[in-house]
């Protein structure tokens, strides 16, 4: 059993996943566990089998119990909530978020407008640890409406939070500073420190310091954080083994220097570590590394030797007891998996002798080992990940991190000195981030698309086997060859769509607007019909928008699909809810050609958008009735506009295309006038699936159109609670009267139609 507890962890993880009903990943873990227990020498270890079985069963029962008890005791009707404020943090859109732990133990995720803070709380400065009675309404957290979307409800559920509390002004609201409890005091201290750091400078240093020292990343600019993510540097912003190691080593050194006996120094350290975990925000990576450090220290004290694999395994098992949901936590997954991989690479690392080579090797192993998991979550990876890591790991560890700790210390001794240092750090980070922006502007990341879970497991397994071969045979031809499966699988992820006979049409939920993704079988071509967009795009600085459909819906979907090139961007007409997303896309996706309706340019928006294409040399095809285009076996027939229509809506590109066994009609925002003309010109057109024009406005989808084209399915793209009342009841009635099946983005979220030569089926995010 010695050194084999990692298998027990696999067994525990399998059980926790099973208990949650996440069957597929559980199965993959089971296969890996079975592989070890059946195909390696461990098969002879009966004890191992038994322990895996017993502990697995225990975790299944324990996690199942925890999961089924994770339920709310509130009805949703309550308006007054009393409890302790747990943590407060800023969010980008001017609201303040906090968690409130009710006296019955349940937690709420609260939000209020930062501008209203003084009014709501009567000038009280809300901080962690405060006792509060708060008035407000609670509602269920948002579910995702997108394929590959972030499910906030599921995320909060795993945190044990079932309601979002929107704080309202009210007479009952009252808060007071908590005076009791060391935990509350620590929380308060942490919150104070973070706030003081934030007030030191307006540069990027405070965000960095509060991330590195206190594990609070909320001050980071979203785009900056995204850069760290794409460059594979995000691990540097998480408090992890590196930080814990630095803190422990420094303290230990100080203790010894001031004459404390080694044994007492260790005892002291072990008592201090939990305090540090609290201050550093308590993320899984901090807990993991602190627990491991504590165990190793205690073991050295009582002179018991434990296998390093067992140490990390016991920590994992303990943390899964404390919170079985951690299995789903990306930070938990990465922290444990990378640490384990580096521990196991010990022999490999000892085979190189120069320190720089060791660092290079550590970086490469950590990067490649986590690549499949990273791809699963962010779909892309930058080539610059490696060189930037080699540059930034020492930069952050040797300069930024020590300075950050120094600043936090000085904060309470000499604020002026702290300010000096934070300005120094500002300068350093400016330089570093200048490099980021430079790389970001000139090179795009490799977009792989979202790999299946099976592929993630295969990739990881292939790479680990390769590490084994490297360990066994050194830097030989055989070892290099062993990397081949890993890279082949990686390439497969990139090229497999071209071997896939299934195509799809996905109407993306962009709110009020249109954006439809069309992929032909074998990826013979990709169309994007409109991009969604906010109204009045160019009136404001576009960064002001909290939600921009092009950036937040269309681009992520393209990335998840592994699409870097769109063959035809069909902009049906020049309204902002159809072309407003172009600026967010045009520099991140290759566009082969743009289809734009004939008939002249009316608005500034149209002009600006078209200029963007021209500046980038993207050809614009002025498209009109009678145009035909072909891609592989697919032919599209344009039935409108003629160019003489009066309104922009009626000038929409309307085209028909046969996909699989069904004929589609994409209508843009065409209205009655246009529809009548199309019906008159193409009375014989038989449509199976209709993209309902103009978000279901009563001015479109006329009886005559439905009578003539006789569609069986209708797709409506409209925003939830939009100002226009789309889709209008009349249209819905017209469709229902004819027993036409309706899918709509405001209710179903993204709507996807998957087809091949013979079959086709619809799927939606929300049933």
């Amino acid at each position: 059993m010695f050194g084999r507890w990692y298998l027990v962890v696999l067994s525990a993880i399998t059980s926790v996943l099973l208990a949650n009903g996440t069957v597929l990943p559980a199965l993959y873990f089971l296969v890996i566990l079975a592989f070890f227990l059946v195909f390696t020498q461990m098969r002879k270890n009966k004890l191992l089998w038994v322990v895996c079985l017993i502990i697995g069963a225990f975790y299944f029962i324990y996690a199942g119990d925890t999961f089924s008890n994770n339920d709310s005791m509130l009805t949703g009707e309550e308006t007054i909530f009393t409890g302790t404020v747990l943590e407060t943090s800023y969010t980008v859109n001017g609201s303040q978020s906090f968690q409130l732990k009710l006296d019955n133990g349940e937690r709420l995720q609260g939000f209020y407008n930062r501008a209203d803070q003084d009014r709501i709380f009567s000038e009280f400065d809300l901080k962690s640890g405060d006792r509060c009675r708060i008035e407000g309404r609670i509602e269920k957290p948002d579910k995702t409406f997108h394929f590959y979307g972030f499910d906030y409800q599921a995320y909060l559920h795993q945190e044990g939070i079932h309601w979002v509390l929107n704080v309202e002004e009210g007479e009952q609201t009252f808060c007071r500073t908590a005076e009791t409890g060391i935990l509350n005091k620590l929380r308060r201290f942490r919150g104070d420190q973070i706030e003081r750091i934030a007030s030191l400078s307006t540069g990027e240093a405070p965000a960095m310091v509060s991330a590195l020292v206190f594990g609070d990343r909320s001050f980071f600019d979203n785009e900056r954080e995204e850069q760290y993510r794409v460059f594979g540097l995000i691990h540097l912003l998480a408090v992890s083994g590196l930080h814990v190691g630095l803190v422990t080593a420094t303290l230990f050194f100080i203790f010894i220097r001031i004459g404390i006996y080694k044994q007492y120094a260790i005892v002291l350290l072990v008592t201090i570590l939990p305090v540090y975990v609290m201050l550093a925000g308590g993320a899984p990576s901090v807990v993991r590394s602190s627990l491991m450090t504590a165990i190793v220290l205690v073991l050295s004290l009582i002179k018991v030797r434990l296998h390093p694999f067992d140490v990390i395994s016991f920590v994992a098992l303990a943390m899964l007891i404390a919170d079985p949901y951690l299995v789903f936590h990306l930070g938990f997954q990465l922290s444990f998996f990378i640490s384990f991989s580096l521990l196991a690479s010990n022999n490999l690392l000892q085979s190189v002798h120069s320190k720089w080579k060791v660092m290079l090797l550590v970086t490469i192993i950590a990067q490649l080992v986590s690549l499949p998991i990273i791809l699963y979550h962010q779909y892309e990876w930058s080539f610059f990940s490696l060189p930037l890591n080699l540059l930034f790991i020492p930069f952050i560890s040797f300069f930024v991190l020590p300075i950050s700790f120094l600043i936090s210390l000085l904060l309470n001794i000499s604020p002026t000195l702290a300010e000096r240092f934070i300005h120094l750090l500002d300068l350093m980070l400016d330089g570093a981030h200048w490099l980021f922006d430079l790389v970001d502007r000139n090179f795009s990341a490799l977009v792989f698309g979202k790999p299946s879970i099976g592929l993630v497991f295969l990739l990881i397994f292939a790479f680990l086997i390769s590490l084994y071969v490297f360990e066994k045979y050194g830097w030989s031809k055989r070892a290099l060859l062993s990397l081949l499966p890993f890279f082949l699988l990686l390439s497969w992820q990139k090229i497999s769509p071209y071997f896939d006979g299934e195509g799809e049409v996905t109407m993306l939920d962009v709110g009020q607007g249109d954006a439809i993704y069309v992929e032909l079988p074998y990826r013979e071509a990709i169309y994007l019909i409109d991009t969604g967009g906010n109204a009045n795009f160019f009136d404001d600085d576009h960064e002001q928008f909290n939600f921009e459909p092009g950036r937040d819906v269309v681009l992520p979907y393209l990335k998840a699909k592994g699409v870097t090139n769109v063959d035809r961007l069909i902009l049906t007409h020049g309204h902002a809810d159809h072309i407003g997303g172009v600026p967010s896309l045009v520099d991140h996706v290759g566009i082969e050609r743009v289809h734009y309706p004939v008939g002249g340019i009316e608005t500034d928006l149209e002009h600006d958008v078209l200029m963007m294409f021209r500046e980038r040399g993207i050809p614009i095809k002025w498209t009109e009735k009678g145009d035909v285009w072909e891609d592989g076996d697919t032919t599209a027939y344009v039935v409108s506009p003629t160019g003489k229509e009066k309104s922009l809506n009626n000038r929409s590109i309307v085209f028909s295309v046969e996909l699989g066994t069904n004929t589609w009609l994409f209508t843009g925002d065409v209205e009655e006038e246009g529809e009548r003309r199309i019906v008159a010109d193409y009375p014989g057109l038989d449509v199976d699936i209709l993209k309902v024009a103009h978000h279901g406005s009563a001015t479109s989808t006329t009886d005559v159109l439905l009578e003539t084209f006789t569609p069986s399915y209708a797709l409506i793209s409209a925003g939830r609670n939009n100002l226009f009342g789309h889709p209008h009841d009349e249209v819905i009635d017209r469709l229902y009267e004819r027993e036409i099946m309706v899918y709509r983005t405001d209710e179903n979220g993204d709507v996807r139609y998957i087809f091949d030569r013979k079959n086709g089926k619809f799927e939606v995010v929300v049933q």
Partner: protein
Amino acid sequence: MRQVRSLIETTSRCLYCQNTFSERPGWNWVFSFHKQEPLCQRCRDMFVRIEGDVCRDCGRPSEESAETDTCQDCRQWQTDSFWESNSFQHRALYAYNDFMKDVIKTLKYTGDVALVDLFAEDLRKLVDKHVRHTVAIPIPITKKRAFERGFNQAEQLGRAFTLTHALERVDSGEQQSKRTRKERIDALDGAFQVTSTLDPSQLNNQSVVIIDDVYTTGATLRAAAKPLLEAGAARVFAVTVARS
């Protein structure tokens, strides 16, 4: 209690020095495609594997003369008309250093047959690298010695082969290890013979492997090879755990 302790404590005990040890964590450990390492790191480092250029015939590591592919010793053997025309080759796993001498002593004279596990598989691999043999024969020991020791070390070392007991010892006097090179060679002539029960056609034109523990002068192994070659074997390949 021991069961409980074994859940977290090491159970590996070095096959040679008997100390407990823990294998360094590595991917080899993670995947465990191989049997657990039987030796502790210290003992493992003491074994010196023979690698690189060796004498074509006797497998002696060639230090000084890369220009000739056979060593001085083997060239001397070839002055003998029998060895001039017959093929004899030998390879050993390890150098016969002081540590190895102790290992062999422990194996042979204190009867620690378990040590054979360290070599049996490797001997087989070594042979497979050089010849496609058909008959594997352990060097026999005298009845007297077999009685004293309780086992024949060569037979044990040949565990990984299908053994044919084709040789027997013609009784001689002293132990080989107590003689000089000259004495050994002289005393050994005619020390082995092919067993009378063996069907001679079994050897005819075959590649034969003979197995022993140590190669010092090569006299014993050549003496054993001679009757086999005379009985019709095409070539003899000798394999030992260690050579000096």
